[in-house]
């Protein structure tokens, strides 16, 4: 059987060998933890605590402020020191609850109590996931309770675990698939229990044979769960590409996976669902890869959310040389940081420090119409023409060229020999088109 995949995509240097053999290491935070209220897609949460309040591990400190929003829970016990804007990984300021750790790690009542998901109703499970503040941990941070609450439960045919981990350098999902396999599959079973007709698929790129083997062993007896081996290619883990590779179904930007009968969750998210439902533990930890050629040491670490990147860096062993670039996340879609004293959130996936910045190395030059961007685009777009429109701020043409189907994977920019900053331009145009659409919708609503 051929490996499942999609058309387009790229093969960048993987860099996984730097950290793939490092077992997950647990790190504990220092005195201060920062919890940004906006760490998911959608409306930021509202703080539910006040300065001076005592909080416990697992206690809710931020409340979802709408359907597409998520709760935030404290990962330590201690005292609320301040509620103020704090720098986040993306470079923006976000209102944050700042907690002083008392190092007792006293849990809230009921924390860690074992539960059998089979004894819970679908509604109870969804409420638990919502209360636990579980969000998509693959990067976008879409609230998970929304994803697992489609219009019609019977219309869901597949629940898919995204184990592609196609971003170069990242290995934390791989380690989790090896070390917390049971919890991941447990999470899958919890989600499958919500959808009477659904089958489970675990999509893993072929460059992780150990994980494929381990997971296959564990699901051997399960008739409704299978492992789908994926071709190693970026962006194989893009939601649309993954759904296509595993089920042959296609969705576009206006659709959710549920519109194609699918629910997709990343590895860490599935484990978080399991922990929330079966172990009464809200989403308060994150597994990250700490890597890059500027590091003294590489590692896969598991930390409490709210811990500073700087503390993680110091614990792992600091920089070997001054990095030219530090990235939160992978090199394709992660955000460059100018200050690493920012907190780890539920959506953080990596701390990557590179000695050479390939972006600064090359100046953009004229497009030679080589077509490499076209061949690489997984969305089957013509980035070269979209860039012409974006450079003229011509949103109308950009939309006509289906620019809104771009999901900013960066493949076109990676391959461009003229080193044009295509994705950056698309990000701006897409934001501008989206804003115009919102304004139009708001105006229509007023009438």
């Amino acid at each position, binding site marked *: 059987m051929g490996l499942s995949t*999609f058309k387009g995509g790229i093969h960048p*240097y993987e860099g996984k060998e730097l950290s793939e053999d490092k077992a997950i290491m647990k790190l504990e935070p220092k005195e201060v933890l920062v919890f940004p209220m906006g760490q998911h897609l959608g409306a930021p949460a509202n703080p539910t605590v006040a300065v001076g309040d005592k909080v416990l591990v697992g206690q809710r400190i931020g409340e979802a402020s709408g359907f597409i929003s998520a709760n935030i829970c404290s990962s330590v016990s201690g005292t609320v020191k301040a509620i103020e804007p704090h720098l986040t990984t993306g*470079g923006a300021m976000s209102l944050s609850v700042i907690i002083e750790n008392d190092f007792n790690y006293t849990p809230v009542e009921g924390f860690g109590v074992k539960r059998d998901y089979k004894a819970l109703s679908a509604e109870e499970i969804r409420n638990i996931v919502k209360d636990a503040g579980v969000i998509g941990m693959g990067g976008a941070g879409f609230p998970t309770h929304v994803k697992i609450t489609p219009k019609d439960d019977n219309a869901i045919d597949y629940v898919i675990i995204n184990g592609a981990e196609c971003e*170069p350098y990242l290995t934390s999902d791989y380690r989790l698939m090896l070390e917390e396999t049971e919890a991941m599959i447990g999470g899958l079973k919890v989600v499958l229990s919500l959808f009477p007709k659904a089958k489970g698929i675990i999509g893993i790129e072929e460059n992780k044979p150990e994980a494929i083997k381990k997971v296959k062993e564990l699901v051997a007896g399960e008739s409704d769960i299978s492992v789908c081996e994926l071709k190693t290619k970026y962006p194989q883990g893009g939601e*649309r590409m993954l759904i*296509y590779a595993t089920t042959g*179904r*296609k*969705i*576009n930007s206006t*659709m959710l996976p549920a*519109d*194609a*009968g699918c629910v997709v969750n990343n590895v860490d998210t599935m484990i978080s669902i399991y922990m929330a439902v079966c172990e009464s533990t809200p989403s308060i930890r994150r597994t990250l890869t700490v890597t890059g050629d500027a590091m003294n040491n590489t590692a896969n670490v598991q930390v409490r959310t709210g811990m500073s990147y700087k503390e993680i860096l110091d614990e792992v062993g600091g920089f070997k040389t001054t*990095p*030219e*670039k530090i*990235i939160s996340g992978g*090199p*394709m879609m992660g955000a*460059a*940081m*100018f200050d690493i004293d920012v907190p780890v959130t539920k959506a953080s996936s990596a701390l990557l420090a*590179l000695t050479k*910045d*390939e*972006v600064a*190395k*090359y100046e953009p*030059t*004229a497009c*030679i*119409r*080589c*077509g*490499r961007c*076209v*061949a690489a685009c*997984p*969305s*089957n*777009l*013509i980035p*070269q*023409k979209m860039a012409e429109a974006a450079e003229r701020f011509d949103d109308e043409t950009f939309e006509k060229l*289906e620019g809104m*189907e771009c999901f*900013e994977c*960066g493949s076109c*920019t*990676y*391959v*461009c*020999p*003229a*080193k044009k*900053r295509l*994705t*950056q331009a698309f*990000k701006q145009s897409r934001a501008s088109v989206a804003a115009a659409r919102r304004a139009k919708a708001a105006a229509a609503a007023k009438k």
Partner: protein
Amino acid sequence: MNVSAAPHVRSKDTTSSIMRDVAIALAPTLIFGIWNFNRYGYGLNAFLLIVICVVFCVGTEFIYEKLMKKPNTIGDLSAVVTGLILALNLPATLPLWIAALGSIFAILVVKMVYGGLGQNFMNPALGARCFLVISFAARMTAFPAEFPGVSVGVDTVATATPLTALKAGATVDVFKMFIGTTSGTIGETSVVAVLIGAIYLVARKVISLRIPVTFIVTTLVFVELFGGHMGDMNYLLAHLCGGGLVVGAFFMATDYVTSPITPMGQIVFGIIIGILTGIFRLFGGSAEGVSYAIIITNLLVPLIERFTMPKAFGKEAVKK
């Protein structure tokens, strides 16, 4: 510390590395050309023509950008490639000053005036070749004698290439044409030398086969259907090996700037050039026609692209 938007990694390919690959791929063809015409005593002149074309193409770009106070772009090596391609389109007997003039024309008129690399709508080397053919018809067809018995029109300076001989009814040696020990422009005679370079370009993923294959196949089908020699293998192979079809298909029609960027458009583009080449060869005044077919189709690229836009991934999907 640097802060810039994702992605943070870049492939190693650059415009100059691609142009360097094209130049490397052209080397067998040009070296063969020098050797081949050396047999007629024009080896040195062929070599000097190549040098002059490169020097004048690069020089024109450099001086133009200096005068216009624009950033210097000769490092992208695209002018070198233009020079090499122009040279392989010239007869080995050509006076050097004409090559220099053609080079200046290619860069100045066809490329820079339209905004430089990426903006020109016609292949600069082919544009210049056509300019030279129009201005210096006799000199541009003064090929070293290969078929002295065949007279081509009133112009006695010109001697025939295999395809003109074929058109005049002579039988030609297809094997010689494949190897390239015949007459023509510096770079059009040897199919085998071109193929060596073409394999390199395909292996390095510099070009795809879409344009060259559709172009060549279409030309051959056209010639087979309308050439009046149905079933004559020698006739068909002569058309394949002669008149710069293969070199045009792999090195000129594939010019990024002047060919469609849409994959479907590239196929349409190849087919149109193939049909035009067939028409020019069978019904036109000259026996070759490849250059004209390419530059005419270059002009159709925006139109071809408009009608061959691919459908975005998942666009046809409907919500369940």
